[in-house]
């Protein structure tokens, strides 16, 4: 019940992305591709591009993914752009979810840092994982500590360990590390 409700609510975040920038962008891409391949007849080129787009879509359909709870331990996996996380957390807040933890993962090979938010619900078992990938050289994401006050410490801890900057955080000082710490020990290239 709750799972379906929250899945639907969170899906709206993806619809906006799809509806606004992507649909107008697609014809532009076609035109560009057609222009680049000037000597070929336009109609044929347009078709091939459309086919490519179709091929990509089923492999990664955007939207909240239901996961197998028994093997994974959570119900819904929500990967978002960093700018959309705040909106997703607002939705979860409206449905009375609570924040279990915030943490990071260093994907050094992809040069990305992942922020992971774990949510759970007091009334009905429904674990939602919200995640966003950040550029490793400039890891910034808006804070959610104004929505969930408990996020304050979790974000400070994640800043300690990974150097992820939560913009708008009221007090992003070291929490568990020494007050003058200028290192981030959970980065994979950290050397003690």
């Amino acid at each position, binding site marked *: 019940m709750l799972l379906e409700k929250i899945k639907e609510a969170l899906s709206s975040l993806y619809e906006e992305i799809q509806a606004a920038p992507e649909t107008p962008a697609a014809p532009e891409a076609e035109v560009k591709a057609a222009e680049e391949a000037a000597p070929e007849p336009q109609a044929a080129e347009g078709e091939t591009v459309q086919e490519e787009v179709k091929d990509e879509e089923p492999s990664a359909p955007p939207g909240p993914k239901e996961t197998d709870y028994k093997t*994974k331990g959570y119900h819904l996996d929500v990967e978002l752009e960093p700018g959309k996380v705040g909106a997703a957390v607002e939705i979860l807040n409206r449905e009375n979810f*609570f924040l279990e933890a915030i*943490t990071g993962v260093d994907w050094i090979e992809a040069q990305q840092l992942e922020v992971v938010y774990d949510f759970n619900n007091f009334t009905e078992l429904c674990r939602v994982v919200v995640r966003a990938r950040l550029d490793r050289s400039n890891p910034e994401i808006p804070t959610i500590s104004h929505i969930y006050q408990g996020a304050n410490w979790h974000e400070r801890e994640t800043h300690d360990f990974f150097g992820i900057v939560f913009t708008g955080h009221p007090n992003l000082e070291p929490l568990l590390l020494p007050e003058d710490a200028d290192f981030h020990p959970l980065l994979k290239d950290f050397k003690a």
Partner: protein
Amino acid sequence: MNGLLQQDVNQETFTLNLGPQHPATHGVLRVKLVMDGEYIVEAEPVLGYIHRMHEKMGENRTWAQFLPNCGRMDYLGALSYNHGYVAAVERAAGIEVPERAEYLRVITVELNRISSHLLWFGAFVLDLGGFTPLLYAFDDREQILDLLEAVTGSRLTYCYFRFGGVYNDVEDSFISGTRAFIKRLRERLPMYDALVTKNIILIKRLQDIGPISKDMVRRYGATGPVARGSGIPFDVRKHEPYSVYSEFDFDIPVYQEGDSMARYMVRMDEMVQSMRIIEQALDKLPDGPVMAKKPPKIVKPEKGDYYHAVEAARGSFGVRIVSDGTNQAYRLKLRSPTFSNLSLFGEACRGMLLPDALALMGSLDLVIPEIDR
């Protein structure tokens, strides 16, 4: 001199430093307090004095080598941490656990929960100025430590669970000893009730002190007795039944008041419920192996991330694993319950008298090594 006399009366606040070495913080926790006379204007806990970076240790040793670390975070409820970690790895690697092993896990974890609550009971009343109950509580707790020492080999920093079961089987003396202990504690609890719970001094120190609303619990993600003392019937053992908890008949004590007394009552009632679980588990304890038939020699969970939560003595303890398919964790996140429980302290104690804030802090049941990890 003139400057002092002209000061605005409302500006007469001063900063008070509590800890990091203070008997009421039970460990190395520091709290910066801005005081207006005896009243707290602002409080900010300062953490990290016993931070050891267990999460990094999880990344640079094998899955099995991390097992002893679990007993060194929440050193009063170490078996819950054992349970959370092995259950997460078992979920990730798809390891089956024989039933007898799960029963033994439940029995030992619940014994550990009682011992943790007994220590909290003694120390909490000590914070409030009553010395005697501590000695009684330690006497009872000692019985549990003896029982668990015989099974696990250690008295505090247990490392008893393995991937796929438990380290060794229990002897008959453990079962009879546990039954004897439950009989003994059942006789002692009415004494605690008469001596402490119904004591007018204790009631005056706790009732209506440090109220925590349901909304505050949710905003800070507090769990365990803190949530249940604020009327939220949230217990991972019932909410998300893991291990064999679904096979036992037990209640979740919930109090609506949200004050320190409610949290006190939740823990006192929980000891009774834990005894019920242990008794049922002893009655039903199945025969059979205590280890999976062929536990993998080298654990290599498949790529991906996994989450498992258990109800520790202080609330929901969660383990988030990110595996890259090797014999070491790519990332190991440990979600400790008191970290979130303490984070609401700053808001909850605003405007309180300092001694009342210490009562509130005691009612949160803090274990600092678990917060700092």
